[in-house]
């Protein structure tokens, strides 16, 4: 099944007393945050990362774009950790720098041009090779390709689906918890829970 949910659900709930003040502040700030001018990534790195992320999670929401590169750039600028990393990986900042450089190496080796200049089908083939851990390029010796893919994609997904626009896309309204949830049986929805449209 392919489910689709109406737009605007989370944004509307944020205007109501169904969310706590703490929840409203956190989500509204994320929703209204302006696009970040990268300070960790160089302009060419930010451009490449945008090209990659646009294939990992394509965005076509007319309500706006989720600034995933900005979320990653902010974390790396502050040198913040999520509490762990694979011992086989270099430190996060190095991992991103090296992984981006290596992605372009693979693109050139496989299709003769940098990643952003390739048609999307070829971009996807480059990403498949990285995910499988078998891409060409000498820089991958310094950063395991499959782990780079996993870490980058997990962070991308975290940034996308913690954003109100991403939450609306999957019909998530768990933040509207002030009235408590009393209908916990299967197929039993409360009025504020969006129904899929198909």
């Amino acid at each position, binding site marked *: *099944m*392919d*489910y*689709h*949910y109406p737009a605007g659900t989370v944004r509307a709930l944020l205007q109501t007393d169904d*969310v*706590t*003040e*703490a*929840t409203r*502040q*956190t*989500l509204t700030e*994320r929703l209204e945050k302006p696009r970040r001018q990268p300070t960790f990534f160089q302009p060419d790195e930010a451009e490449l990362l945008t090209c990659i992320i646009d*294939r*990992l*999670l*394509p965005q076509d929401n007319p309500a706006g774009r989720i600034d995933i590169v900005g979320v990653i750039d902010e974390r790396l600028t502050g*040198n*913040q*950790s*999520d*509490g*762990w*990393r*694979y*011992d*086989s990986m270099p*430190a996060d900042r190095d991992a991103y720098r090296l992984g981006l450089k290596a992605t372009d190496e693979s693109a050139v080796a496989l299709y003769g041009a940098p990643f952003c200049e390739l048609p999307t089908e070829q971009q*996807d083939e480059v*990403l498949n090779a990285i*995910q499988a851990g078998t891409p060409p390029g000498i820089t991958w010796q310094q950063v395991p390709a499959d782990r780079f893919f*996993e870490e980058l*994609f*997990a962070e*991308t*997904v*975290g940034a996308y*689906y*913690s954003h109100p626009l991403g*939450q609306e*896309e*999957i*019909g*998530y*309204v*768990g*933040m509207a*918890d002030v009235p*408590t*949830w*009393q*209908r*916990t*049986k*299967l*197929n039993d*929805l409360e009025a504020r*829970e969006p129904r*899929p449209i198909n």
Partner: protein
Amino acid sequence: MSNQYSLNDTVDAIVIGTGAGGAPLLARLAAAGLKVVALEAGQYWDPKKDFPTDEVGQDKLFWNDERLSAGTDPVPFGSNNSGIGVGGSTLHYTAYTPRVQPDDLQLKTDFGVGVDWPISFDEIATYYDEIEHFIGVSGPSEYPWGPARKRSYPMPPLPINGAGQLMERGCEAVGIKTSLAANAALSAGRHQEGLGHRAACANRGFCQAGCNVGAKSSMDVTYIPLALSKGAELRSECYVTQLVKNSSGRISEVVYLQNGQEKRQKCNYVFLCAGAIETPRLLMLNQLANSSGQVGRNFMAHTGLQIWGEFDEDIRPYKGIPGSVISEDTHRPDDADFAGGYLLQSIGVMPVTYLQQMARQRGLWGEAFKQAARAYNHVAGINILGDCLPYDFNYMELSDEKDGRGIPKPRVHFTNGENEHRMTAHADKIMRQIWEAAGAKNIWAYQRNAHIIGTCRMGHDGGANVVNADGQSFDVPNLFISDNSTFPSALAVNPALTIMALSLRTADQFLANRNRLNV
């Protein structure tokens, strides 16, 4: 009421860490009239103000100083397997509180592997009873597995969530018995000593982050307020760096950082309750309590395979207590080709947690991933928690890399052994059968190990263990350890309730023997 001691006072005891290992013991020592100070690295949160219903907004509850995960099956930390703040990782535990069964404590006797516990089940069960009634555990009136209980749970079970209903359906179809589970969250409001009224669970399904209504029985709303009402002093945002030994081999002083300033508190006893990574890390950094060479060894992490599936039914996995249904029919399966066993649990899940797991292991990305993500409201999971044996190749060490505080990062080596692989394969088959019988489509498995256990093992023999059965160091007589690091085996249950039980036992043993200890 809570006291405030001076740095010039010699307090009776310093408790380092305020999670499931530290908080119960803190309350017990304070109630006995001791001058006790708790040092907690994290903040004292106000759940109403500080806990938005937002996963990213709550990552402050995780110990986010970087740890290095090595081995064939690297164990994740941060949102898993760590905690910081007054209440420790109980702030974001799922509140699942099954008891161990007696045979969990004797894998060596029954299977010839691992080690037996130096404590009897009956002794632990006495504390289970006390804790369940004090913190407020909701559970079934009759629990089908394990020995008879002294009393039933103090409150009826919480409403069953979508995943739980599906697990009941699937298990019934394949002939596996289920029960509503014990959860440390209130199915009805109640008075909490030292705190006041606690509200009933709002079914907001956000238990793997902080509870903003106080219904989840984390330490910050149970044993911490009790400890403060009995006179304990709590110092939050205090990061311990040194345990200073005097010439007689006892710890005389604890050094910590508060607001960037180094402070020193004199003390007679130290209770180290910082969890299975930070506890051995502190001992290693201070070169303490390790004549056995066992500090950091015997690292274990539960087998924790999850099976996910999509159902036609509208489930909304963000509603209801995540772990509402349990089965312990797999505790000692007849057809097992492994030692020990496991339990089965239903799991509700928050969206970012679920989708990041999917990102790491399902293999989908691009439009295929987005379509699978849009099925979130139709997703339910079941998982296991099972034994993990200790192996020489699984251990924690200090790396050469320094963290943001300038302190060596811990490196944790973990690789599942043959026993864990066999158990996981057994569970994979059973859970897929259950989920298929329940009507799941697009079933996929998330490989994981969860809960960190065993880096400062307890036992009778000081040559092979770090502490004795009372949690007392064999090397430093006024040092006690109380947390998941002392578990001799992993146990086939979630560890929090047993950590609390050992915490109270350590306090009681200490109080009973204090005159003899106080040489």
